[in-house]
């Protein structure tokens, strides 16, 4: 995994040296950023050199811990407290930012260099109206009168394509969707027409169709304002969509640099090749249809509905949200069914109803012919053995105060298994999911995200279930780790003859792992079919939109063509 040890040289393509006429607006020279003592390595960023010209989008690609965000923060002068620049220069229009006083930096931030962030949900002040937060940018730099500021804020909201700018201006952030908030962030960043825009994973937290829109928007604004953009991402699909120049980073070092075409079509470094290969292609493989069980499907869901009631109380008016509306599907033994949809589609509600973490409002869930939708007490408890869940967030789904062995063993123990036997089994399961048996003696925080998700899988397996419901089980992971966890799930599924319900917003992941796919939109099932049919011949407009929005599809097709030639 670690190329530092292998001594593989970084690959610098000619395209990264042959650049447009004129001076770059940003020149980062041999920048090294030191981590505080006791960190896992000395430098977060090690001798990074990048030029960004006006009107150019430079992507910095890497997985978590590669130092890509640290580079962006350094350019903005916003490094965390204990992290310091050890050497190098960051020139903005020829001026070394690292030598500037704090006051001079305040003037540059927001005015000449602006930034947008990954999490639109938390990047806006929850207590301030949107308009006020945009007006603040002008205020910070002592520009315009109060009235003009308000007008400009409105204009900006209109420019970034918010449907009702007047209303958006008066809204609080929580009244807007994730995509709308990201547009507000972009409006804010554009306010003073900065020369450089830093975008730190701006679309990672968004749905695929929203992602496509935001990428479009950034592209369009970058052209009309002739901005230089430093775009941080881990997703080569996004790179293919938007980049002019690409820099790939690993463990703080540059491993490959070149134009988007050079890096995507002829990656020279093994790490880059690995990252590109790890992206699920979005092309579904042919899978043999599962044999129909003579006694009927293992799981049969009929007209499942889930309605949430909100704003109740003595006098409050009750509001109903139909999260799931009469969704029906079935699952054969040994089959993987994907449930795909954007946030708010109701896919997670379906998953939670299946494992009865939530009670369905209507419909039937037949497990081997028995309706488990309304089970209670002991019968419900016995059913839980048979359907287990793997959760999205490997950081919050494991109890931080319990040792891993206990986390895995407590399920079987609750079902009457002997303590010693359960712990022994836990160790065996840890080895099975690719961890050391000694992991049982350690706490969850000692593991990385991917390792924790393996622990989560081992925990689900401990009860020897027949069905595993995986809710966005790989969404929080880096692409290369994602690929490993998907492979593991596939393998375990075969070993134990498991059936899998795989809930995801990522169509590429669904294409890779699922036999059949159910597409959901606003609580309804809009299309269902074999993965291959869905991806190659989608019938519903919504499905087609989803597939078209997958980033980097055009380039991927080219890569695939080149690879097969």
């Amino acid at each position, binding site marked *: 995994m670690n190329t530092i040890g292998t001594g593989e040289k970084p690959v610098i393509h000619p395209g990264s040296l042959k650049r447009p006429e004129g001076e770059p607006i940003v020149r980062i020279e041999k920048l090294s950023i030191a981590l505080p003592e006791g960190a896992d390595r000395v430098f977060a960023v090690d001798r990074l050199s990048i030029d960004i010209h006006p009107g150019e989008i430079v992507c910095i690609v890497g997985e978590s811990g590669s130092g890509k965000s640290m580079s962006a923060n350094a350019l*903005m002068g*916003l490094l965390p407290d204990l992290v310091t620049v050890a050497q190098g220069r960051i020139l903005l229009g020829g001026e070394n930012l690292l030598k500037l006083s704090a006051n001079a930096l*305040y*003037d*540059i*931030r*927001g*005015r000449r260099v*602006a*930034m947008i*962030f990954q*999490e639109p949900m*938390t*990047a*806006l*002040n*929850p*207590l*301030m109206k949107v308009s006020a937060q945009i007006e*603040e*940018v002008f205020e*910070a*730099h002592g520009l315009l009168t109060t009235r003009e500021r308000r007008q400009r804020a409105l204009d900006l909201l209109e420019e970034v394509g918010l449907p009702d700018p007047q209303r958006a201006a008066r809204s*609080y952030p*929580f*009244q807007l969707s994730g995509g709308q908030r990201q547009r507000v*962030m972009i409006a*804010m*960043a554009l306010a003073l027409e900065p020369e450089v825009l830093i975008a730190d994973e701006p679309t990672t937290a968004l749905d695929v169709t929203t992602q496509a829109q935001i990428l479009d928007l950034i592209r369009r604004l970058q052209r009309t304002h002739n901005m230089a953009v430093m775009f941080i991402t881990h997703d080569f699909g996004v790179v293919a969509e938007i980049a002019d120049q690409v820099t790939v980073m690993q463990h703080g070092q540059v491993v490959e640099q070149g134009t988007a075409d050079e890096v995507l079509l002829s990656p020279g470094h093994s790490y880059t090749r690995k990252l590109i290969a790890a992206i699920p292609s979005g092309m579904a493989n042919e899978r043999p249809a599962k044999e129909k069980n003579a006694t009927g499907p293992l799981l049969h869901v009929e007209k499942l509905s889930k309605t949430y009631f909100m*704003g109740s*109380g*003595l*006098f*409050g008016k009750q509001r109903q949200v139909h999260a799931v509306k009469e969704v029906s599907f079935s699952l054969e033994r040994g089959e993987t069914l994907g449930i795909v949809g954007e946030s708010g589609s109701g896919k997670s509600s379906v998953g939670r109803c299946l494992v009865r973490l939530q009670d369905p409002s209507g419909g039937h869930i037949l497990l081997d012919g028995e309706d488990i939708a309304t089970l209670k007490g002991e019968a419900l408890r016995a059913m839980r053995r048979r359907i287990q869940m793997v959760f999205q967030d490997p950081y919050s789904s494991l109890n931080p105060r319990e040792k891993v062995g206990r986390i895995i063993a407590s399920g079987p123990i609750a079902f009457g298994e002997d303590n010693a036997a359960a712990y022994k089994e836990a160790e065996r399961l840890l080895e099975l999911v690719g961890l050391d048996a000694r992991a049982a003696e350690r706490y969850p925080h000692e593991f990385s995200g991917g390792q924790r998700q393996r622990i989560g899988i081992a925990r689900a397996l401990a009860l020897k279930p027949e069905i595993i419901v995986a809710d966005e089980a790989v969404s929080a992971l880096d692409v290369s780790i994602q690929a490993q966890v998907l492979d593991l799930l596939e393998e375990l599924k075969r070993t134990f003859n498991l059936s899998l319900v795989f809930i995801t917003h990522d169509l590429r992941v669904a294409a890779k792992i699922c036999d059949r796919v159910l597409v959901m939109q606003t609580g309804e099932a809009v299309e269902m079919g074999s993965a291959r049919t869905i991806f190659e011949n989608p019938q519903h407009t919504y499905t087609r939109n989803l597939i078209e929005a997958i980033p980097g599809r055009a380039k991927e097709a080219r890569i695939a063509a080149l690879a097969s030639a």
Partner: protein
Amino acid sequence: MTRFLAGRLVRAVFILLVITVSNFFLIHAAPGDPAAVMAGESGDADPQFLEQLRERFGLDKPLYVQLGIYVSHVVRLDLGYSYRQQLPVLDLILERLPATLLLSLSAFAVSLGLGILAGAMAAARQGRLSDTLISLFALIFYATPLFWLALMAVLLFSIELGWLPGFGYETVGAGYAGFARALDIAKHLVLPAMTLGLFFMAVYVRMTRASMLEVSQMDFVKTAKAKGLRPRVIQRRHVLRNALLPVVTLAGLQAGQLVGGAVLIETVFAWPGIGRLMFEALSQRDYNLLLGVFVVSAAMVLLFNLITDVLYRFVDPRIRVAS
């Protein structure tokens, strides 16, 4: 908003009723009754005299009848008659209420104001000497018993230095009027109000500091920095405002104790407030008076809770729209 208020008011009245009934039973569960205490004090424990007393106070009736009578009176805002003091309970309470409210509201204002100020200062200077000092004093005030602090304050400021009066509401017999009287009361107020406020001030300091440090790690603070805002503006507008949300919740809790929470301080400083009235009523088994004080302080708790909830809706827009 009107609907919200109406709903909360109906609920508050219901809760008040439940409290009144359970207080009634709790008090009657205690051994002895006013008649026994009075008879004991007069030195005449003759059973017949006791019977007479009980009959006069209605204590001979079955408990549920007594309860019915009491509740029906309370509903009409009639808190009964204190046979010990020979005055209507409501008059007694209303006479004492202003002094208590003056004391506890001043303490409330002082603790909240100074607490937030010092907490914000400590957070802005995290790790520096001023932060360490503020945190240290907050810890000392937090850990020291109130009555001891009160006694020490009297010793130092009143007896040793002679700066401030050590007890009472005003100088008796001085005949001050108007502004001179207000000044006199204010002087008497300083020590008890400060002492009463210190504990909560310490809580606010610690809470504001911790909350601000937590908020300053949040994403939107980074956004604010990226706009080019100066640190001072970021601290005030983005960090402090968000950090105050949990402080408001706590202030609501403290506000609930405004009436009943000053017993100790009122006793130490001989402050003629509700707390002392309650204490006397308790030792004299003055049922009506005691119950009256309970009803009034419960009503105050509910009132201040309601005010806090309304305030919270102004401070946090998310709550306003969600409900």
